């Protein structure tokens, strides 16, 4: 490069030279050459400085970028929350360290694999439902599901699932941020267990009030059975009269059938008593709310009779099954019915009635108890469902508060309002069972 420059310098010197002495010419050329050499050196130094500066700047910038990347990576990896990204088909494209740690696998092992097999089978359908409902409009969805761990046990996780789109609105992939809520769930289970105990204690207390009535209810069929037995015996004794024997045998047979049915009736009452007072863990099963209403009204049959209260049933047919603990809901019914009976002690006998009705819509099943009692004073309405609050002299203030916690444990609500004219109405709202969507195939 330097030769090239010197050559061009030579050429220009030659071409512009006028006739002078050789010595002069030589000196001139030498001076010009020296000047050029000096300029060249200056430019070269300048260039090298600039290159060095740019390089240093680039290095600094790279360093900053690296630091930033490391910071973000460490934020994602060091936090306790799980962060994953995935493609339709549930294929991992990114997993953070927290998630790898929980599963006991490395990110290399996980990336590219499908995560559906580690979702608990009971939650899988609902998970698909949630993901299918994601879109441009609602790109977030929260979901709780169990994850099967390598040792076969499972943990409960809460996830916020999100659909990611690019600037143009095209779908890129899913991102899910989750955390382990097993302990939270366990704590909730413990609370539920305690609530179940409380409910049981309350049922036993209720039974204490009902026991005299139940004794009456049991004596009724026993009395019938004994009387039929006596009638049967007398009929059998009369068989000795040959002309009448066929009639008496027939009657005696009828009597024994009645005895058997009366005994079954007794057994049924005792069984329902036992079921009502027996402690058992909360059992969620599918059942017909109308049936629960009937069972509850049987338990307090004597109480309603004693209070001279007429029960009017307006139960909708074809009621959708609901999910919950039958005995606890029966308890809610018993509590509400007994309250209604007590509220009507001042009501004229001919007006004492409780209208029990059920209805349903697309999302919930409703059960209403409408009485003709004294209602509730406006200033007490707020505290209706508070624990240890009671307007009754003998009341513990547990009945309605328990009803409320039972309703809430079933994902429902309960409220009570004064009727326009007389008495008040309590309404229990329970959610209908959310069935997984009909399509059995997975679209994610």
């Amino acid at each position, binding site marked *: 490069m330097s030769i090239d420059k010197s050559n061009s310098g030579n050429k220009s010197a030659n071409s512009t030279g006028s006739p002078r002495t050789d010595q002069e010419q030589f000196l001139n050329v030498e001076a010009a050459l020296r000047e050029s050499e000096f300029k060249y050196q200056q430019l070269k130094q300048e260039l090298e400085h600039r290159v060095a500066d740019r390089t240093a700047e680039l290095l600094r910038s790279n360093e900053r970028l690296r630091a930033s990347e490391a910071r973000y990576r460490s934020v994602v990896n060091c936090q306790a929350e799980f962060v994953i990204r995935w493609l339709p088909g549930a294929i991992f494209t990114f997993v953070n360290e927290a998630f790898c740690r929980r599963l006991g696998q490395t990110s290399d092992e996980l990336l590219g694999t499908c995560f559906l097999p580690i979702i608990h089978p009971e939650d899988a359908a609902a998970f698909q439902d949630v993901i299918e409902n994601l879109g441009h409009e609602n790109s977030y969805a929260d979901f709780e599901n169990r994850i099967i761990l390598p040792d076969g046990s499972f943990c409960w996780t809460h996830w916020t699932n999100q659909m990611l789109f690019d600037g143009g609105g095209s779908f890129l992939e899913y991102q899910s941020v989750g955390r382990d809520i097993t302990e939270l769930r366990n704590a909730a289970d413990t609370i539920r267990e305690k609530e179940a105990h409380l409910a049981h204690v309350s049922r036993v207390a209720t039974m204490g009030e009902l026991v*005299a009535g139940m*004794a*009456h209810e049991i*004596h*009724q*069929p*026993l*009395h*019938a*059975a*004994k*009387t*039929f037995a*006596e*009638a049967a015996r*007398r*009929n059998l004794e*009369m068989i000795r009269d040959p002309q009448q024997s066929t009639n008496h045998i027939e*009657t005696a047979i*009828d*009597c024994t059938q*009645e005895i058997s*049915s*009366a005994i079954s*009736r007794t057994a049924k009452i005792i069984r329902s008593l036992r079921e009502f007072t027996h402690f058992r863990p909360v059992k969620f099963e599918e059942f017909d709310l109308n049936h629960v209403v009937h069972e509850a009204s049987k338990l307090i049959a*004597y109480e309603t*009779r*004693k209070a*001279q209260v*007429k029960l009017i049933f307006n139960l909708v047919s074809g009621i959708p099954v609901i999910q919950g603990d039958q005995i606890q809901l029966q308890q809610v019914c018993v509590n509400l019915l007994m309250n209604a009976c007590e509220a009507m002690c001042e009501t004229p*006998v001919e007006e004492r009635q409780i209208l029990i009705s059920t209805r349903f819509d697309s999302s919930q099943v409703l059960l209403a108890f409408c009485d003709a009692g004294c209602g509730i004073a406006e200033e007490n309405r707020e505290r209706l469902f508070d624990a240890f609050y009671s307007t009754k002299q003998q009341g513990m203030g547990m009945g309605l508060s328990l009803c409320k916690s039972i309703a809430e444990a079933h994902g429902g609500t309960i409220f009570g309002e004064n009727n326009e004219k007389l008495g008040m109405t309590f309404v229990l709202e329970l959610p209908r069972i959310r069935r997984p969507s009909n399509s059995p195939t997975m679209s994610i």
Partner: protein
Amino acid sequence: MSKQPKVYVVDDDQQACKAVLALVQTMGLPAESFASAEEFLDAYDDYRPACLVTDVRMLGMSGLELQERLNELGVTISVVVLTAFASTPTTVRAMRNGALTLMEKPCDDDHLWEAIRSGIAADEQNWKLEQRRVTIKQRLDLLTPKEREVLEYVVAGNANKVIANRLDVSIRTVENHRQKIFQKMQALSLAELVRMALTVGVISDSRNS
């Protein structure tokens, strides 16, 4: 000729009603059952002799209230009270209302049978007595006020002479009244006349000598 006795059963428990009907059937007697006291009061037509078997605790009118209502109406049939939960106040009230007996459900062996049987027997006797009272009262109504006065003196044990003295009439007049009284009352002896007077309560201390 005595009428066939009838048994009425009032109980809001259908099976309990049916059981008592089956038991009564073994006595060869007709029986009717009612699900409430009100239904029975509506249907009852003063049939005698009869026995009522009623439960205490029922929707609407209770068995004890039914007894009280029957007493108000002057119905005197035998009442057997059944209860599944006997308390002292209930028992006292039932007996004071004139119950033949109060029994606790479930009843022992043949106690209910016996109770109904004796209820019917008691009512047959009461009914006969009541009928007799009615007959005697009808005869009494035939007497003139004077004859009625003489009757009171006669059954109080006064001699004709005493009565004549008291009423300031002749012995002959008293004897005539006496003859009319025996005739109208269809009494064959003084003893029978006294029994009749006792039955309907025509005995007055003030007529004693």
